[in-house]
């Protein structure tokens, strides 16, 4: 699957990554912007995500709804995502229709109008999206955990933003955020699928080269201090189920230790796929924490999560408790397992297993052209495309000694947040 890719940089600074895949008459086209909740300031949380929504609200060339119809008619699909470090927009289309994607993305890179009435109707849509999230206990716990895990870094905020900020942000704020961050020199264009690279580059020049570069006014976060003592947070809400979550400060994606933590995650809670589309997962029933918690009847389920980010983010362990057990008891079991790993070297065969799991997950993900195009741009947002190409090899370089060292460095109680969701009777 690691076929040749072609990389170019347009004069206006737009980074272009192309990968020809001729297995199906499909092309997937992605534009990635280096802006996300990481770049938001106090009082404006959620603005990147809301701007992403506004990008579907029309330009002088394409009125709202026109593109939805045009893409759907061609049998394509499109969507957008906002994350901590980035915002991305994609279209996957039958190969002979792809010029529409280039036309519309180059157009809305600079020409979106953000009509005031659309801003207001989208305000309630975004608040409704947030209210849907709030119905989930784990969203509420996550929100509390993030703000406990970071003192000042914007990673402490939910990407969707706080309710107060969603009520306060105005059209001018949104439009200024758009103008500050959406330009060719702050973007990566990634296209994978059934095309000839020379012909595709011609199309790219036609649509993207006329857009002028301009100064990017992205707000960059300051350094966050280390956690030096264990933080605690507790959320109460409806239900009968208790959840425990641990969040350790993790290395950045570009740090060699990231790969070591990935293997540790695989050992503790099972392999996590980084595929955004397709692939599915691998179960985690032989992982250490599943055996210690679920098999020993302390918990119903356990899983882990590590995100590839620019600044140090979090490695999470999430546990759904079995009724009748206290979170403190479960925490003790987790710490025992981590201590055991910290004290003795694991056999090399366990690393080999994690590598094979990663190889399988990448193979599953490579069935899908949309997912391959995703991989062509995503690593550029926190490192470079080579990060992806070298991923399996980097896992191969992890040694039992590196695992022990990383466990001792990163998975210390004083460097974590312990979060508990406790059910309570809610008055009707």
């Amino acid at each position, binding site marked *: *699957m690691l076929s040749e890719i072609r990389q170019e940089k347009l004069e206006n600074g737009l980074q272009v990554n192309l990968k020809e895949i001729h*297995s*199906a*008459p*499909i092309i997937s086209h992605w534009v990635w912007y280096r802006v996300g909740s990481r770049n938001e300031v106090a009082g404006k949380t959620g603005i990147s995500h809301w701007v992403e929504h506004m990008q*579907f609200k029309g330009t002088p060339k394409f009125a*709202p*709804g026109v593109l*939805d*119809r045009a893409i*759907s*008619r*061609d*049998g*394509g699909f499109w969507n957008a995502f906002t994350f901590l470090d980035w915002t991305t927009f994609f279209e*996957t289309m*039958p190969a002979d*229709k792809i010029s529409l994607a280039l036309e519309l993305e180059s157009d809305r890179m600079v020409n979106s109008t953000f009509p005031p009435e659309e801003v*207001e*109707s989208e*305000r309630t*849509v975004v*608040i*409704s999206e947030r*209210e*849907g999230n*709030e*119905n989930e*206990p784990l969203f509420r716990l996550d929100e509390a955990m993030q703000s406990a895990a970071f003192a000042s870094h914007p990673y402490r905020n939910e990407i969707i933003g706080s309710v107060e900020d969603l009520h306060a942000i105005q059209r001018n704020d949104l439009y200024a955020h758009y103008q500050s961050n959406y330009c060719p020199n702050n973007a990566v264009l990634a296209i994978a699928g059934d095309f000839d690279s020379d012909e595709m580059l011609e199309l790219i020049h036609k649509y993207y080269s006329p857009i002028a570069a301009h100064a990017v006014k992205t707000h960059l976060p300051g350094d966050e201090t280390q956690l030096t003592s264990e933080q605690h947070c507790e959320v109460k*809400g*409806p*239900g*009968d*189920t208790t959840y425990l979550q641990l969040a350790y400060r993790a290395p950045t994606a570009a740090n060699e230790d990231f790969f070591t933590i990935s293997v540790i995650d695989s050992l503790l809670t*099972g*392999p996590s796929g980084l595929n955004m589309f*397709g692939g*599915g997962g*691998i*179960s985690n*029933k*032989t992982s250490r924490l599943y055996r210690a918690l*679920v*098999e020993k009847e302390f918990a*119903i389920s356990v899983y882990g999560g590590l995100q590839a980010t620019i600044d140090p983010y979090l490695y999470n362990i999430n546990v*759904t408790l*079995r*009724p009748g057990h206290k979170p403190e008891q479960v925490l003790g079991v987790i710490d025992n397992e981590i201590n055991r790993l910290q004290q003795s070297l694991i056999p090399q065969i366990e690393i080999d*297993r994690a590598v*094979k799991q990663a*190889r*399988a997950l990448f*193979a*599953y993900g*490579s*069935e*899908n052209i*949309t997912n391959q195009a995703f991989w062509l741009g995503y690593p550029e947002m926190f490192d470079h495309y080579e990060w992806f190409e070298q991923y399996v090899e980097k896992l191969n370089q992890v040694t039992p000694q590196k695992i022990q060292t990383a466990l001792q460095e990163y998975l210390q109680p004083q460097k974590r947040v312990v979060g508990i969701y406790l059910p309570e009777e*809610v008055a*009707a």
Partner: protein
Amino acid sequence: MTQFLDTRSLPGPEDITRKVLPNGITILTRSNFNSPSVVISGYVAVGSYLDPSDKLGLAHFTASALMRGTKSQNFQTIFDKLESAGASLGFGASVHNTSFSGRSLAEDLPLLITMLADCLRHPTFPQEYFDRLQVQLLTSLSIRAQDTTEMAAITFDQLLFGDHPYGRPEDGFIETIQKITRTNLVDFHREYYHPKNLVIVVVGAVEAQAVFDVIEAVLGDWQNPVQIQPAELPVILSPSKTIRRHIELAGKSQTDLTLGMLGPKRKSQDYLPASLGNSVLGQFGMMGRIGDAVRVKAGLAYDASTSLNAWIDGGSWEVGAGVNPVNLQKAIDLILQELNHFIEEPVTNEELADSQANYIGRLPLSLESNAGVANSVLNLERFDLGLDYLQRYAQSIRAVTPEAVLETARKYIHTDALVIVSAGTNL
């Protein structure tokens, strides 16, 4: 509207190989060497329609327990083999079927098929794992009881389908799961799991003959002499007037709404006109007319769309939306307005052409992954659509007219006889 679709690239009789083994197992396979992986998908015709009413969830419980131990392998061995290979396998029950799906690198297909066969044929349901799983299922049901979307959906099905198995949740209720014993699982498996109603689809980097060889080796000699005739299913009747129900769930920011009526069976002639009509009503683009009214114009919901669920014995046609409690009635009114419009006038030629083009154009996209192909091939078999169905698909879609959509809509949609369920905090 003329749209070119190269039917030769679509799965069809030329490249789907189908074989029925002497013991009744049906195998369908299609090779794809673009990626070094393989998926399996399939079902046995055993589902919640067989659940006794006081033990709802039995088929689901049995399916969930198949991998907890077999005569020759314990739980740890089963998952150690799969996970070490980066492979996955899982079972789950719906109303008519217990389905399975799995994937592995192509080199590990024999491991995957052998595991599938062992879990289907020789599960032992160890007591220890039965007990553990029961607590896990009960906890899932406690979580479900707090989920506004799920509670609205379950209540909707109960009110719409009544005593029919479609009206009962496949995962049961807390009190019915509590009543199930290990012996129930053992008996259920012995009585209903049969090779003759097993269908297996394999798609990926493997030749058809290799697929047949590995399946025959581990499943070719499976026999089950027990023959139990399931009871007839009750007749599904439409409600005679609108039923409105609210499920109170305290402490929730959002109220979820499910509103709808009966829909056609999958094999009904009404299915395609209803499906295209459903697309116009609540799918196309940003969720069709209802998305446009509720989300885009009124800004009331992040999600407002329709779905057509067509099964063997019947189906449902549903509108779903998540709204702030204060906007609930406003959203219901907007949806009713759209439903009335939908049965008063035919969809425009343009609207229908949009959805037709979408259906035809997206077909190759739905078939790009092995899992997508396997799912489509399985549906061909499940609903007896014919191996050339996908190749005939564009023609069938183009044949639907606005009049046919209107006629079908009027047959199913009666806005004075709806089921309307909301779940969320009381105002």
